[in-house]
């Protein structure tokens, strides 16, 4: 049974912001696939709260392509919606892949991409993929909307740059984030479904013939927050794509990441995945096999 004080749905984002600002005990709930689990386990940060539902706010689940080529994803769009959306399928199929790797069908019907980011988990499958797309976030607040990069949004495990009263409203991927790139996401997990990533690896690659013009690599679970592999990316630029280069990219990724030991996986094993998966993700992005 769930222990909460109230549940209110706002008619629009301003009302939702207002509800939050007026009540320090208020908390956002979207799909509930994380919040209800924490409530069930009686997490003190969640019990007894006044929940403000945001998934039925008009526009919050829309996915659209702007005239300037920017892809705009409503923060309350479910994983299932992203998986099946025509705009995403045409321009950002790797995000559909990442969204499709979350949980199982029930979770993907309820869980939202905004929740996946705002929840602050390093393992979030869409977080690393969107990070590799140079995504930005539109955040609604009492002072209106602000747009910030996704890079830097994650502050630590379970912590993101959102003040009380702010709501993640949209995720944007500008044309420069995806045009000419091919993307790939590999979720390495013990199970093929209903699992959390042991390591997630997202790449966006732009080729110039057989040379790598640009490569962006983002990881989940390679550190406390989703992170980009800057030195590996820098090394990759201009290299001719071959197995040796991909291996070198993998080794470089170790300089950019901070894997640690836990009962879930040993550090050495995580490091092995960090060095192996980028190459596989690149191959996957370019249409070869390479599924982990």
């Amino acid at each position, binding site marked *: 049974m769930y222990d909460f004080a109230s549940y209110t749905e706002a008619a629009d984002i301003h009302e939702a912001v207002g509800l939050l600002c007026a009540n320090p005990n208020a908390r956002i709930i979207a799909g509930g696939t994380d919040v209800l689990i924490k409530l069930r386990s009686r997490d003190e940060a969640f019990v007894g709260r006044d929940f403000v539902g945001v998934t039925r706010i008009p526009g919050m689940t829309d996915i659209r392509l702007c005239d300037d080529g920017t892809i705009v994803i409503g923060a309350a769009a479910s994983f299932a919606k992203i998986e099946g959306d025509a705009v995403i399928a045409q321009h950002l199929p790797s995000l559909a892949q990442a969204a499709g790797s979350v949980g199982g069908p029930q979770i993907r019907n309820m869980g939202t991409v905004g929740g996946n980011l705002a929840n602050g988990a390093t393992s979030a499958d869409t977080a690393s993929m969107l990070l590799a797309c140079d995504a930005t976030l539109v955040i609604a607040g009492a002072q209106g909307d602000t747009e910030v990069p996704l890079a830097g949004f994650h502050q630590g495990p379970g912590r993101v740059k959102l003040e009380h009263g702010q709501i993640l409203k949209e995720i944007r991927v500008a044309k420069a984030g995806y045009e000419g790139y091919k993307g790939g996401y590999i979720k*390495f997990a013990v199970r093929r479904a209903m699992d*959390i990533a042991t390591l997630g690896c997202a790449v966006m690659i732009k080729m110039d013939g057989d040379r790598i013009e640009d490569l962006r690599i983002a990881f989940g679970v390679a550190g406390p927050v989703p992170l980009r592999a800057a030195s590996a990316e820098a090394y990759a630029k201009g290299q001719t794509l071959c197995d040796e280069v991909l291996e070198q990219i993998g080794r470089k990724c170790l300089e950019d990441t901070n894997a640690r030991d836990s*009962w879930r996986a040993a550090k050495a094993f995580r490091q092995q995945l960090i060095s192996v998966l980028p190459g596989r993700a690149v191959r996957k992005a370019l249409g070869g096999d390479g599924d*982990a």
Partner: protein
Amino acid sequence: MSNKVIGTSVPRWDAWSKVCGKADYTADIPVKNMLYGKIVRATIAHGRVLSLDTQAALAVPGVLKVLTPADLPRVKHATAGHPYTLDRSGDVYDKNILTEDVRLYGDEIAAVIAETQLAADIAAQKITAVYEEYPIYLTAQEAMTEGAREIHEGTKGNILADTTAKVGNVEEGFALADYVFEDEHRTQVVQHCHMENQTATAFQSADGRWTCISSTQIPHICRRILGEALDMPWSSFRVIKPFIGGGFGNKQDVTIEPLVVAMSIAMGGRPVRLELEREEVLAYTRVRHAIHYRSKVGVSKDGKITAWQVDAVSKTGGYASHGHSVAAKGGGILCTLYEIPHMSFRSRTVLTNTGNAGAMRGYGVPQITFAIEAMTDKICKELQLDPFEFRLANFKKEGAPHPLNGIPMVTNKVADCLTLGRQRFGWDAKMADSGAKGGSVRRGVGVAAFSYATGVYPYSLEIAGCRLTLNQDGTVKMLVGATEIGQGIDTGLAQIAAETLGIPAEMVYAEETTDTDIAPFDTGAYASRQIYVTGVAVAKAAEELKDKICRAAGKFYEIPHSAADVEDAFVINSVTGERVASLGDLALRTYYDKARAQTLTAEVSHNCHDNSYPMGVTFAEVDVDTQTGVVTVRSILNAHDSGVIINPLLAKGQVEGGMGMAISYALGEDLFYDPKTGEPLNNNLLDYKMPTCMDTPELDCMFVEPEDPFGPFGAKGLGEPPICSPAAAIRNAVCHALGFEINALPLTPGKVFAAIQNNRGGGADV
């Protein structure tokens, strides 16, 4: 005459009601004025509760009472669902309903009763305890260390039992050997993960006695344990088992029933429900024993086993539960799989401050089979012997007596399982296709055989009961004490009744509940016994009822009863073959003939003095990704000798379920404990890696069907056998792919990767 019902895939009678959500499980059954319970659990793994502060809990609105050990009988009970032994020597009486002595993290130290589940949950969280803490022992080795504190007072060295089963003289056997092989094998702690969590409701019935509706595999045994735990006459209790969402042995222990009845007693008889959450089930009910084996095998130049020595150390957790029987069972398995002239099987069962191990599908046999077949694989590789020839040369021969108890293994088709399975699996082609497969993938094949025992005779009582009633329209109501827990035993037993009576299976009605006030006595669902033991009770009852039907036919129709028979639900003249009357017509007369009415029933209690041996072999083909350690099962086949198969579709379901459990036993599942505190780390289904359907490959199975002389219509047990050998076969396939040995389960990517690294660095095998 050929069978009409046996051997056909009669649909389960309860299938539609289950898939449509109509079947009522314990928590679905409405009870008036219900109260709700919640267990308060220790937050240390070893120590003593000095004081409990319940004030804040009692202040939570809706909370009615907090029970502590002081409120309950001080008498100890044994939780294992074993048949009672008249001298009470069978089990260890070591458990109080609530305890001050904490023996594992999560031990039950108090309980809240409230008007809502939420109030009970909130209150349970508010209860704090002051402890005196003792050193914790998470491994058997630590618990056996000199000077370690006794987890249960009086258990020296924390060793519950230390036994050695012997055949011949193992030293003589090694003297005869030309080669001797030694190795160690380790298995992990896993949990049953039955779909329905343990749930029970208790209330005082109109007659003043105590009814307990429970998701139990063992209603009659549960009633006896309630009597022992609450120190009241056994007949004070009535246990009712409705539909059950699986048990796999975990519900062969009495875990929550004494507490929920005690709660109702404390509330003056008001109904109380106790429903465990998944986290509690995973960590605080029962688990499979982790066993560490040291094996030594002697082999002669001509490829015959001369001696086999095993030293097994089994971790049972904080309480005895099934005690030593799980570890000790391995000796009988070893010497019934192979002909071993000289065997010594030592086993020790050790108390530790970890999750309590009990019965789990296979009862120690997946563990010992892993050790046996890993050794067999090693011998074949090192002596460059063909794994089929070596096994065929050493398998126990059909008809030979069980070396430890003398019962002849009258049917034993393990050799046929091996040779026919080899063809069906396409072993030779797959073997030729093994090795490096491009990229980082290596492919391998593995095989493993097992031996099993259907029931528990001669070590324990075997008893089953059946009552059949001829209804007014000629249909038959069947009541058994055997427990339907999802495996489909009701449908199989109805087929036995129908075949014997000469009626179609749909004319036999099974019963969804087992009620100890109503159902004939039977010890319940465990081992692989029910088709074999209860099946005979059903066949006997059906023969008796049929005889009564024929006698009634002689009374009501122009036919001598000796000539009467029943075929296709008609009374026939067995001499002429003519139909005399429908069974419905005869039944109506037995109820309503004014002068001669006498309803027809038959009741049988069957004390079984037999045991038969289901055998089998698993074949597995795997890919190992040497960069990531990921093992993918490409194909897998279980070949079973379980005697005559009563219902092929249900049998296939049983085998597939067992194989699915076994594959994740081999590759993924592992319950972890914090090394510093003993707290379970992954007692939830996100972190505990139960497989999904996407992780399970196509599962193939086949049956070799000798007619066993003891089981009904030639059947032997099949409930547990499917889980016995897949893990060993998968391990052998992985080792074949990699070219070196890995001797600890599970073969997770992280472990396989570490083993590959170690092997490259010339380090020891993991």
